[in-house]
């Protein structure tokens, strides 16, 4: 495809997104019209964006689109390079599935809810995300970044009648702006030193900076982007905001909005700031490892299905940061090949996570709608009532647990190979750091598997645990279509990983100037290798084929062994009680109890039991039980911080006495100081 159709497709996609949003505002009264038109336009826009992005990646061709604009003093310049387009492609794919899903999902909204307003902010989020990924200068980037935060804020607070939702929205708003503050400072500093806010000027300018300047820039950027990426300890907004939002928005946020942070870190670490010193990479690796383990530990004990998925997003952001940090370390060692493998693992996991996490959130949305609760203790038995939704969730659960032969396995396998490659380095520190990080990745993977066995086993299997779950119904066909497409993509990306990897080449070349696919894909595109000739190999498609074969083998043999075996259906063993009820089932809390006890030092679980009795404690009239864990970051970091800020602020209040004269004096003094400052410099 030549240049003009790419830019036309890109802008056309943006215009379609915008049209979807405008329809939402204009025809807000016609609920059905808005729903159908906005979803269709957004889906079409996503198709166009996807085609444009795919073309750019495939041809490894950079396209710059400038829109002459007098208004707003904004330089509307978009740069479509492979890195931008890769994220934009993920957005388009996920956005398409979510838009199809929303067609049915929005129907379920309460008739009092403004569907039109929802569509407006949803489209605004799609536009601003696209702009964040493709902005070619800092001003446009920051404007898009703020629009994104704003749109996301309104979507998170959509159910604003609930106190919890309002709090979540405000927390998101504050954290997001704290992050933006760091970014603003960083961009202003870098822009001043570079003499331009154009992204292409940053790379050149950073060569002349001192290590101190570069280091402080990196820290500011890392903090600012880390907030959006959901990195621990600046993650607190995420588990509050994602469950509060409508599920299609949670899916978009978890799959893509989180990735804007990762995109930013990739941009600064591999583009703006040149070759990184060793400590940057180690810092990112450490932050990633901590986020991965703590994220999954929190996910493991969470009874709220959507909040569990939100914590799992923190875990996956951690895994992505681990490989990203690895790539940075290898780059500072000048090992472009290892850096390329680590980057391939990182980029692959970014896309995979976008796919399976949006799948899981969408399935969770269908379940939450059907059962009217987010608490998995009140679900159960859904595999009979919502068989297709359950199947979609199961596919997502297998993929996110990194189990073969789906896509999560392939990216985790690549991550292991990249981390193992670190052992070959010369510094003994990194030689030991990488395999330890690898083993902690294994811990994360195994805990994630436990977490999703719990979610699926408690939420979908056995007997229904509430009357709502008993009367649950299958999701709307369009919702199933959206989920089904993502589930199919999980399988396709897993089995076809060897076909997908060459697509990452342009990105890896752009970032570390090294190719991967020719080394990683062997045997006519069937086998994935770790790069060295006798290194590790894996062939997900072959494994899948053989697995199906060996799984069917005993069934075939049993069928050939003609023998009349009686299969009867009977009750589950209930220890002689009169019939098994949902009260006999294992609960989600009980399921994670052993791990809660093993990691008690981290969770600091507390529980409170109050028994009321009249005659003896053995015959209680009522029992009240409450258990929970210590929210360590909130109590030890954020509450003291908030208290201190409020205390300082109240001291500042003395200058705000309410007297107009005093305020005029402040303005005058400020003006004089600024003038003096201006004259001196």
């Amino acid at each position: 495809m030549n240049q003009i159709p790419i830019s036309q497709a890109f802008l056309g996609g943006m215009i379609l997104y915008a049209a979807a949003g405008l329809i939402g505002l204009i025809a807000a009264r016609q609920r059905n019209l808005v729903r159908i038109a906005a979803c269709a336009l957004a889906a079409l826009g996503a198709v166009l964006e996807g085609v444009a992005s795919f073309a750019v990646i495939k041809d490894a061709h950079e396209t710059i689109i400038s829109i002459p604009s007098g208004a707003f003093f904004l330089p509307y310049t978009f740069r479509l390079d492979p890195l931008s387009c890769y994220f934009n492609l993920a957005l388009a794919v996920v956005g398409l599935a979510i838009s199809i899903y929303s067609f049915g999902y929005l129907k379920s909204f309460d008739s009092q809810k403004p569907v039109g307003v929802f569509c407006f902010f949803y489209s605004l989020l799609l536009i601003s995300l696209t702009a964040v990924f493709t902005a070619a200068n800092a001003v446009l980037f920051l404007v898009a970044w703020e629009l994104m935060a704003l749109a996301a804020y309104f979507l998170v607070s959509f159910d604003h009648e609930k106190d919890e939702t309002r709090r979540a929205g405000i927390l998101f708003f504050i954290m997001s702006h704290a992050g933006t503050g760091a970014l603003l400072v960083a961009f202003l500093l870098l822009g001043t030193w570079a003499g331009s806010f154009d992204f292409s000027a940053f790379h050149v300018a950073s060569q002349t900076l001192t290590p101190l300047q570069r280091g402080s820039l990196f820290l500011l950027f890392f903090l600012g982007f880390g907030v959006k990426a959901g990195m621990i300890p600046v993650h607190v907004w995420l588990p509050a905001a994602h469950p509060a939002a409508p599920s299609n928005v949670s899916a978009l946020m978890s799959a893509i909005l989180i990735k804007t942070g990762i995109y930013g870190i990739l941009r600064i670490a591999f583009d703006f700031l040149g070759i990184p010193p060793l400590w940057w990479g180690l810092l990112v690796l450490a932050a990633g490892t901590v986020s991965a383990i703590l994220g999954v530990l929190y996910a493991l004990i969470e009874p709220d299905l959507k909040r569990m998925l939100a914590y799992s997003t923190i875990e996956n952001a951690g895994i992505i940061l681990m490989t990203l940090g690895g790539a940075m370390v290898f780059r500072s060692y000048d090992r472009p090949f290892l850096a390329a493998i680590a980057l391939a693992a990182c980029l692959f996991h970014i896309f995979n996570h976008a796919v399976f996490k949006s799948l899981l959130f969408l399935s969770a949305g269908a379940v939450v709608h059907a059962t009217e609760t987010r608490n998995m203790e009140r679900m159960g038995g859904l595999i009979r009532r919502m068989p297709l939704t359950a199947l979609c969730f199961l596919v997502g659960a297998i993929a996110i647990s990194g189990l073969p032969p789906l896509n999560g396995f392939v990216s985790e396998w690549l991550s292991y190979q990249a981390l193992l490659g670190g052992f070959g380095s010369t510094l003994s520190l990194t030689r030991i750091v990488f395999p330890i990080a690898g083993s902690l990745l294994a811990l994360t993977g195994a805990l994630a598997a436990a977490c999703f066995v719990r979610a699926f086993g408690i939420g979908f299997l056995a007997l229904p645990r509430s009357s709502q779950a008993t009367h649950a119904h299958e999701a709307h066909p369009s919702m199933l279509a959206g989920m089904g497409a993502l589930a199919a993509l999980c399988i396709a990306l897993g089995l076809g990983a060897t076909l997908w990897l060459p697509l990452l080449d342009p990105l890896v070349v752009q970032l570390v100037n090294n190719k991967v696919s020719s080394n990683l894909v062997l045997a006519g595109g069937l086998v994935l290798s770790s790069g060295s000739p006798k290194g590790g190999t894996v062939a997900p498609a072959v494994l899948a084929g053989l697995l199906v074969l060996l799984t069917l083998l005993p069934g075939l043999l049993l069928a050939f062994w003609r023998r009349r075996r009686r299969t009867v259906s009977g009750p589950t063993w209930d220890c002689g009680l009169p019939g098994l009820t949902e009260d006999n089932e294992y609960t989600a809390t009980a399921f994670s109890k052993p791990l809660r006890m093993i990691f008690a030092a981290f969770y600091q679980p507390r529980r409170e039991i109050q028994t009321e009795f009249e005659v003896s404690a053995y015959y209680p009239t009522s029992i009240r039980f409450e258990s929970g864990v210590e929210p360590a970051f909130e109590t030890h970091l954020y509450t003291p911080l908030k208290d201190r800020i409020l205390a300082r602020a109240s001291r500042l209040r003395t200058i705000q006495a309410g007297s107009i004269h005093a305020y005029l004096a402040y303005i005058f003094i400020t003006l004089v100081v600024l003038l003096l400052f201006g004259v001196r410099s």
Partner: protein
Amino acid sequence: MIEVLVKSVIQLILLLLVAPLVTGIIRTLKARLQTRRGPGIGQPYRDLFKLLRKGMVIPNTASWIFSATPYIVFGTAALVGLMIPMTATDAPLSLFGGVLAVVYLLALGRFFLALGGLDTGSSFGGLGSSREMTISAIAEPAMMLAIFTVALSANSTNLSEMARSAVSQSWRFLAPSQILAFSGLFIVLIAETGRIPVDNPATHLELTMIHEAMLLEYSGPYLALIEWGASIKQLVLMTLLVNTFFPFGLSSSWMVSGLSLGLVFYLLKLLLLACCIVLVETTNAKLRLFRVPELLAVAFILGALALISTFLF
């Protein structure tokens, strides 16, 4: 292609036949050590044959997950068995997946087994699933560290390459890193195969059980498939241990003479390892569930020490 197929079929048959044998040997040795006669080495075969002929009772609360689980457990175990060198260094399917694929395929089987336990709605199933996932989660990093140590000294995660590298330096197992890694993996083997002191394979309907609790509702051919799959998994892990650390007698080709010699050596090594397992099982009492993490922490530390010592010595 044909060659791979023939090798796979040979190894599959070997796998299916040897796995119950090892279970039988362990049980008999254990009985002898406890001055019982024991049911004899052939009992697992007779059990499997009997179960395969029987009918089944399927719990009426269960879904298709319950029925799919036995096949998946069996299938993953058998597939893993084809990727691991048994009698020859060249495993039939080693190109298609190395040690990481082995670990994760076994995890896939475990994932479904745990779901199968939860699917029945019985508290025992949930209890077993919860404990199984817990113990495997904390065993995983220890296992990976030990595996990394071996993989790094072979510079590959491909099992055939690892075996070949072990053959080329046949006294390597005396190196401190290898001894430490072996000890770590041995503890993981005990935990993963559900043996004393982690789990007791001989109990039913006790509140301490782990593996058996998940299988409580399974009967007939389904139970046979799961039991067979579990014994194949045990064989695979034992093979991983004996062939990567003590590669003696591994045939370098698939010629009949080499293979038969390799088979004799292989069975001898398995017998020795089985003796070790039986000794551990007989001389230890079962640990309380919450003491198991300490044991696995020991395995983790052994793995970490193994890794450090690879570049100290």
